[in-house]
């Protein structure tokens, strides 16, 4: 925890404490803590007559789930007021997307919520496809692959949520187990897309390339392994008295609170309300998969944890069904048939790594003038999208994720705005934290599971 104020009022040589210097500002006395020496602070507090202490926690703090800054007003160890400071990871992705083609947009938006990249790509692609009017033309295999990747991603994202949440409590084993299993999912991503994150794999019109050989076997053995390992996490945490004591009744937010503050995802389902866009407003053919919406009725951090664990089991079910369908779709197209939209190049592994397949180069250079024109036009100029706006939300691991995409008929997004669930859910910090202990702030925020890349975009 640091009390940090680089204000101009720093009195030169007021106190030569290397680790906890203090200064006088218009706001009162400010201590800067960088080490473990709190002596000068306790002394300083004893001198003053003011009870109110404002503590700045973050943005560089291991327990704030990323570069989140918390401004906490404390009365002893009780939090009387809590506010969030965000924006430390703002990279202007939305603005940047306005200067790239529609397909290049996926390369940017995949970096927003970096723990759930496929969801960013999927909601953006679905929005662009609605604008293009090709929603019904997406090949079945592409849709099934999207579902497969999204559900694998849901597992990896929930694993990180539980792992980092555990780590912030001091439960280091939860962290090591969570990251160990997540690594298995990332290996699958690497096999299928070539990358562990920032894939840009789901694109307007379909997905970037077909499944590599052997992928379905790997997925099968992953599902079998996770069926054994998920119960391990449950056995470690579900009834663990310390874990329960830290989580139960902490960060409570009931259904009315969730709706007023716009919370969706696990916090909403932990109130017992089974709202899951995969069921209520199905996209990508989710209505054809057999799975259940997981709820809990305690509306607290423990409930959110249990919802996440149970959702991983449901995701495994969906992954299994998707893999089954893919086994029957070998060789089917994964990109829309319209040559004026479909990304032309096909990738393959060459002697110098992955690149354009030689067959494709031979085709455009030696066989088809039209193919060459399409390739050139789509890669340099991109396709035009009819003017209008669309919003196709999906259920990301953290809640409703939607892209408001606006086109003016050009080859670039006129505006792309992402409704990120982390951004919206983080607003509940004050409500969840105020009146509780300072240690419970950590738990409450971990139970929201904000990803700052998505919050700040």
């Amino acid at each position: 925890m640091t009390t940090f104020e680089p204000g101009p009022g720093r009195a030169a040589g007021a106190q030569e404490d290397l680790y906890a210097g203090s200064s006088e500002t218009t706001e009162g006395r400010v201590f800067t803590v960088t080490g473990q020496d709190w002596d000068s602070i306790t002394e300083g507090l004893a001198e003053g007559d003011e009870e109110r202490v404002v503590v700045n926690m973050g943005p560089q703090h291991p327990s704030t789930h990323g570069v989140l800054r918390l401004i906490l007003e404390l009365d002893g160890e009780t939090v009387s007021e809590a506010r969030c400071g965000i924006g430390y990871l703002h990279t202007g992705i939305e603005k940047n997307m306005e200067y790239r083609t529609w397909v290049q947009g996926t390369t940017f938006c995949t970096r927003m919520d970096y723990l759930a990249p496929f969801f960013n790509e999927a909601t953006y692609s679905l929005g662009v496809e609605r604008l293009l009017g090709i929603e019904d033309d997406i090949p079945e295999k592409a849709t099934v692959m999207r579902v497969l990747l999204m559900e694998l991603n849901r597992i990896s994202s929930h694993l990180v949520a539980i792992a980092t949440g555990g780590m912030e409590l001091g439960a280091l084993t939860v962290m090591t187990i969570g990251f160990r299993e997540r690594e298995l999912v990332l290996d699958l991503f690497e096999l299928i897309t070539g990358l562990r994150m920032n894939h840009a794999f789901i694109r307007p019109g379909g997905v970037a390339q077909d499944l590599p050989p052997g992928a379905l076997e790997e997925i099968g053995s992953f599902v079998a392994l996770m069926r054994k390992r998920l119960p391990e996490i449950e056995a470690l945490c579900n009834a663990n008295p310390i874990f329960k004591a830290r989580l139960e009744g902490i960060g409570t937010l009931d259904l009315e609170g969730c709706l007023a503050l716009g919370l969706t995802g696990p916090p909403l389902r932990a109130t017992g309300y089974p709202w899951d866009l995969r069921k209520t407003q199905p996209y990508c053919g989710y209505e054809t998969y057999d799975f259940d919406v997981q709820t809990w009725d305690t509306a607290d951090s423990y409930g959110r944890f249990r919802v996440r664990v149970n959702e991983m089991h449901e995701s495994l079910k969906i992954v299994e069904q998707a893999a089954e369908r893919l086994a029957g779709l070998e060789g089917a197209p994964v990109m829309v048939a319209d040559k004026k939209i479909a990304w032309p190049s096909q990738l393959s592994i060459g002697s110098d790594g992955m690149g354009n397949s030689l067959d494709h180069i031979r085709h455009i250079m030696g066989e088809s003038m039209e193919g060459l024109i399409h390739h050139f036009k789509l890669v340099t100029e991109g396709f035009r999208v009819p003017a209008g706006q669309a919003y196709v939300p999906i259920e990301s691991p953290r809640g409703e994720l939607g892209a408001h995409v606006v086109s003016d008929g050009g080859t670039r997004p006129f505006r792309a705005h992402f409704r990120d669930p982390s951004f919206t859910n983080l607003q509940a910090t004050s409500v969840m934290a105020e009146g509780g202990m300072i240690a419970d702030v950590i738990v409450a925020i971990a139970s929201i599971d904000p990803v700052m890349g998505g919050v700040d975009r």
Partner: protein
Amino acid sequence: MTPPDGERPTGPDAAGQPAVEQSPENLPAPPGQVSSRGVRTGMFGAKGTGDTSGYGGLVAPVVFPAPTGRPFGGWFDEVADALLDHLAGLDGGHEHALGAVVVDRGEITFHVRREDLLQVARALRDDPRLRFELCSSVSGVHYPDDTGRELHAVHHLLSMTYNRRIRLEVGVPDSDPRLPSVVAVYPTADWHEREAFDMFGLVFEGHPALTRILMPDDWPGHPQRKDYPLGGIPVEYKGGTVPPPDQRRSYT
């Protein structure tokens, strides 16, 4: 830029044209089915004397989907009817308040006057026939060529009771970018409105603390407006120089 009176173009442009039989897909849209917001000139991004493309004189309107007439179809009419009941007592009558309704690609957009926004939002949330409990997002869009309504605030609302989604759009002039805040109705709009203020300079009146949220407090300007430069530096690579993205050739 809308074709006048829905007829085929007449006047000097059309006079010298040979009479070509037009396919049904290639007819100009009838009036009232398009709304123009600005024009696009040329092609391939080349400007001025450097333009050897031959398309420099091309002028094409930027055409957005235009207001839809009744019936809107499906549950859209139910929502519109219920909303009109609430707006009947408003200044200028409800026709004015619900001036434009756009049904496009299966989504419905209600264009609302800013003075009515709060009442509309309240009706949408509280009426048992509407029940839009959740405000998904508030985002800004800058249309520099939509004269008099340059800045748009777009609210996405969700009714969990009826499983419906609608969009509210409020256009305000750049010179007076004020509109009421809906935080009193939807507390979740707090950060969304702060972001729209930060990025577009939309001033949400009645917001409890309308401050910047993503950019530093002392940041000049509103970065996502179209007239705000993207920024960037040229990058040298193997003797060549790649200009920053906003100075590269654009094809729009």
